[in-house]
């Protein structure tokens, strides 16, 4: 008995001696770093190679318009300063599963209204009413109604859709013109390049506006949470994080329902305030980016020694002056983090945006939406199929501009100087007292409730007040199974490789290497996930593996990996290295030190990182859609339901709620663990 124990002990000793060897440790770190570079960084940035390899491709597909319009396949209707044209190739029967973009091209300067019916012909030349819709185009712009191949055509293969009974009218219903024909329609004549630029413009403008609003509204809230003590603070603190527990697809659904005019559906309490996609997307993006801003700002506020503020106050500076001259300038690092996180999140978001756009203009094909963001354009093209060059180009541009812009943001904030010398003692003193601080606090609260909390959970109002429709749960469960599989595998891989990488970044002896890795880890976090998906698809696609599941897993791995590394690295930076050093001098080998000293102190951060990675994977739409459109995760399934029409909204809402419940559960576990850790 004793002998056996001793033997085990000696094996253990040999093992720990072996893994403690410098060369062995180096070997392990080598594997981890290689994993990170090859499986995360290279695939994420692979799309940049398109700038070189795709040059000819771009000339052909991006910078030139599709086929020229010829009189005999083009029908044009003049309506004053607008034209509506239907351009189409030779009337022929076309395989819909291959050529999938068909469209009605519209140029207009006024609001018009289009009614159309689409028929499909089956093999027996019998016609089936397949698609009926009306769309409105408001203001000047180019757009097209796009009919895409999707599952619903499966039963009538080899037959293309056609337009008939095309009617045009002004938005008020005044008739303009109509025509009937048996024609196939083809996508319009806009240059893909223009579309990309338009969409990216929208994306960046929205991201900038959202970030600014987040900052203005988030700063007082962060202040309130860190520097003030009041009853119910704990609950406010939890409420802030709530939107993070709701997958963005569900958020898009909920927010659109609350704020916007959503044709074909209504819910009790819906405000029906706007039909503007621009406004709606901004409102939506604030909901899920605001918590990031508040969290980043409060994290840094925590770190700033209150003595600086107290010192300024003892010198006679009223609180507002203190905030402006002392706290804000000390704040920069946190500001950079907050701004970059919000900016990147807004830029990256796909699922919620697609949901909201779909609900504003139901039954309209994505590419015909009056407004596109970068990710939604990627989603649309991906969905339409056959747009590989366009996708690659968009993703590449998105990555490049994002990286450049973020570097610029960082430089601007670090260089920007607050006007220290110029002080306005009178007004600042006045604003620091009496009713003003209360007003500020109250408006932060109101903002949080009306912009964040109510829109996030408005989906419940819909479910409770609208008429129940029969729900087919089986596709939901199969999607759920797939989602869990992906999230599970991703989380495990993250732990295996993310924790050692975090240790290397914080404690590594090679400072230059650590620093480079530290910067690289953030890259997948700021690259928009849909661009990341395209990039990954190109990278692995070039190797022709063709495994959808693996593709999805590797995409999810890329954008969740930084979450684990960041969390663990953050905890390690807080952990005084003298603990580990002391343990070493007391005779403990590195692995023993990790197990007994380091791990107990960071285990909660590891767990928090794992849970964050898991929920993010569960809620992600953009990366999944863009890497493999056929992959059926829950958010993709929900987006599909909403796109299929308002009759599926009820099912979509229930699926959303199921997803919310699961995310919520994990978040509560995380909170509980965090509290225990304290």
């Amino acid at each position, binding site marked *: 008995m004793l002998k056996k124990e001793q033997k085990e002990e000696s094996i253990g000793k040999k093992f720990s001696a072996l893994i403690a060897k410098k060369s062995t440790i180096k070997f392990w770190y080598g594997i981890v770093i290689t994993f990170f570079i090859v499986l995360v960084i290279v695939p994420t940035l692979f799309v940049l190679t398109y700038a070189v390899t795709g040059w000819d491709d771009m000339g052909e597909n991006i910078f030139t318009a599709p086929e020229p319009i010829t009189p005999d396949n083009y029908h044009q209707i003049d309506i004053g300063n607008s034209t509506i044209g239907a351009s189409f190739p030779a009337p022929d029967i076309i395989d819909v599963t291959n050529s999938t973009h068909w469209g009605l091209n519209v140029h207009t300067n006024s609001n018009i209204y289009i009614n159309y019916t689409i028929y499909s012909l089956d093999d027996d030349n019998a016609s089936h009413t397949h698609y009926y819709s009306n769309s409105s185009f408001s203001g000047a712009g180019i757009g097209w109604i796009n009919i895409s191949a999707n599952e619903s055509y499966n039963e009538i293969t080899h037959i293309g859709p056609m337009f008939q009974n095309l009617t045009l009218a002004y938005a008020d219903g005044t008739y303009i013109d109509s025509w009937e024909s048996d024609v196939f329609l083809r996508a319009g004549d806009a240059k893909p390049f223009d579309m990309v630029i338009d969409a990216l413009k929208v994306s960046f403008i929205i991201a900038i506006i959202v970030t600014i609003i987040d900052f203005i509204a988030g700063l007082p809230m962060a202040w309130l949470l860190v520097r003030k003590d009041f009853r119910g603070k704990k609950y406010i603190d939890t409420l802030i994080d709530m939107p993070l527990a709701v997958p963005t697809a569900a958020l898009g659904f909920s927010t659109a329902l609350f704020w916007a005019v959503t044709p074909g559906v209504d819910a009790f309490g819906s405000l029906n305030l706007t039909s503007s996609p621009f406004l709606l997307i901004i409102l939506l993006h604030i909901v899920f980016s605001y918590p990031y801003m508040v969290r980043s700002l409060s994290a840094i506020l925590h770190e700033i020694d209150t003595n600086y503020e107290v010192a300024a106050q003892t010198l006679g500076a009223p609180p507002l002056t203190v905030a402006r001259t002392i706290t804000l300038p000390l704040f920069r690092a946190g500001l950079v983090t907050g701004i970059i996180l919000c900016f990147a999140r807004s830029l990256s978001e796909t699922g919620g945006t697609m949901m909201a756009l779909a609900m504003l203009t139901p039954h309209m094909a994505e590419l015909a939406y009056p407004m596109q963001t970068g990710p939604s354009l990627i989603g649309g093209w991906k969905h339409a199929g056959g747009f590989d060059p366009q996708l690659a180009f968009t993703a590449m541009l998105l990555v490049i501009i994002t990286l450049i812009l973020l570097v610029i943001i960082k430089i601007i904030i670090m260089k920007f100087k607050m006007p220290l010398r110029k002080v306005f003692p009178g007004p600042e003193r006045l604003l620091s007292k009496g009713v003003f601080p209360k007003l500020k606090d109250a408006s932060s609260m109101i903002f949080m409730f009306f912009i964040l909390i109510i829109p996030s959970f408005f989906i419940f109002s819909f479910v409770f007040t609208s008429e129940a429709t029969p729900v087919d749960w089986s596709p939901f469960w199969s999607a759920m199974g797939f989602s869990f599989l992906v999230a599970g595998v991703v989380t495990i891989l993250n732990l295996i490789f993310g924790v050692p990488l975090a240790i290397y970044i914080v404690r590594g002896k090679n400072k230059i290497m650590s620093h480079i890795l530290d910067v690289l880890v953030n890259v997948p976090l700021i690259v928009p996930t849909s661009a990341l998906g395209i990039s990954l698809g190109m990278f692995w696609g070039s190797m022709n593996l063709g495994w959808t599941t693996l593709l999805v897993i590797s995409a999810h791995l890329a954008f969740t990996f930084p979450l684990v590394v960041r969390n663990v690295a953050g905890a390690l930076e807080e952990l005084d290295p003298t603990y580990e050093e002391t343990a070493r001098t007391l005779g403990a*080998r590195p692995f023993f030190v990790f197990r007994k000293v380091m791990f107990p102190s960071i285990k909660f951060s590891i767990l928090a990182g794992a849970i964050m990675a898991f929920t993010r994977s569960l809620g992600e739409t953009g990366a999944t859609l863009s890497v493999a459109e056929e992959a059926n995760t829950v958010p993709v399934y929900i987006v599909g339901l909403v796109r299929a029409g308002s009759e599926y909204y009820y099912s979509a809402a229930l699926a959303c709620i199921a997803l919310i419940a699961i995310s919520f559960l994990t978040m509560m576990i995380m909170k509980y663990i965090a509290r225990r850790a304290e």
Partner: protein
Amino acid sequence: MPNIKITGLNKIFGDLKAIDDLDFEVRDGEYLTILGPTGAGKTTLLRLISGLTEQTSGTIEIDGKNVDDLPPEERRVAFLSQSYSLFPHMDVWENTTFGPTARGWNPDKVNIIGREMLEMVHLYDRRDALPRELSGGMQQRNALARALSADAKVLLLDEPLRALDARLRLDLRHELKRLAKAMNMTTIHVTHDQEEALTISDRIIMLKDGKIIQSGTPQEMFNKPANPFIHHFIGEANFIEGTLIRKENGHCRITDKANRSFRASQTDLSEGANVVAGIKTEFTILSKEKESDVNSFHGTVDRKLFMGRFTDFEVILAEGGMIHARLPSSIAHKFDEGSNVFVHYSPERLLVFPEPEGGLKAELEMM
């Protein structure tokens, strides 16, 4: 025989020579103090010896064996950091037995040593407490017990008393030495506190800018400082700048810039040299009447600072300049603020140094 031998040790961080070509030895069982101002390289030196930092060049031998390639856990050198670094999630017992457990000793042996050490620092009754539940002094004792039980031969203490209240420090520093001696440990204790160094050490090494500027017993350091800086750092001193006029039997004569003449202690410097002479404030004598013609000057008491056992006087001399004197409080009542006094330097206590490069003021800069 855990002696330590350090030869040609260098540590360079970027442009900074943190440790600049050190050579010294620590004898078996010796209690050595490394004294120096902040930034002198004291902590870096401890980290090099313990293997937590790798030296740029030079060798470290412990017990006659070169340890340059050994990782910290194989050097058997216990390091006690300023903040103690008690593992926050372990109780007093687990902290104390960390070393033996890490080395994989059998549980009986671990229990024996843990108990022995905790009883020695009077913490056995608190063995289930977590570090945060202990007072500062108890934490320090717990950390010490942990270091002593780690089967180390050398104990490295990095400002072990800094985090404690001033009054508590006085009690604990003797406790610290007692325990180190009881365990027959070779100890290197780093501090910036000259009084602590003076009272606790067998030997002091004075470190400045990564270099050793003097080493010796406390008496040697106090009574025969190698330069004006040490003279002023270990106890305060009054200085005069002047020229060495003449060497006499057992004395020398110095004239300062105001043409005052001083008799000072013996020196090897040659006549005509520019010199600095300094005397500890403890040996600067005040009297009501002029007691001697040598080194005696008239002045007025500007300020009295009571410090308990001693009272510090600031005296403004009639010829200009201010000097400090430290008198036992029992006689301090004789001299009120504003009263006329005579200041007297005894020649054998007035030590002579060559004029420092860069001037006296720069030499004495403490901050």
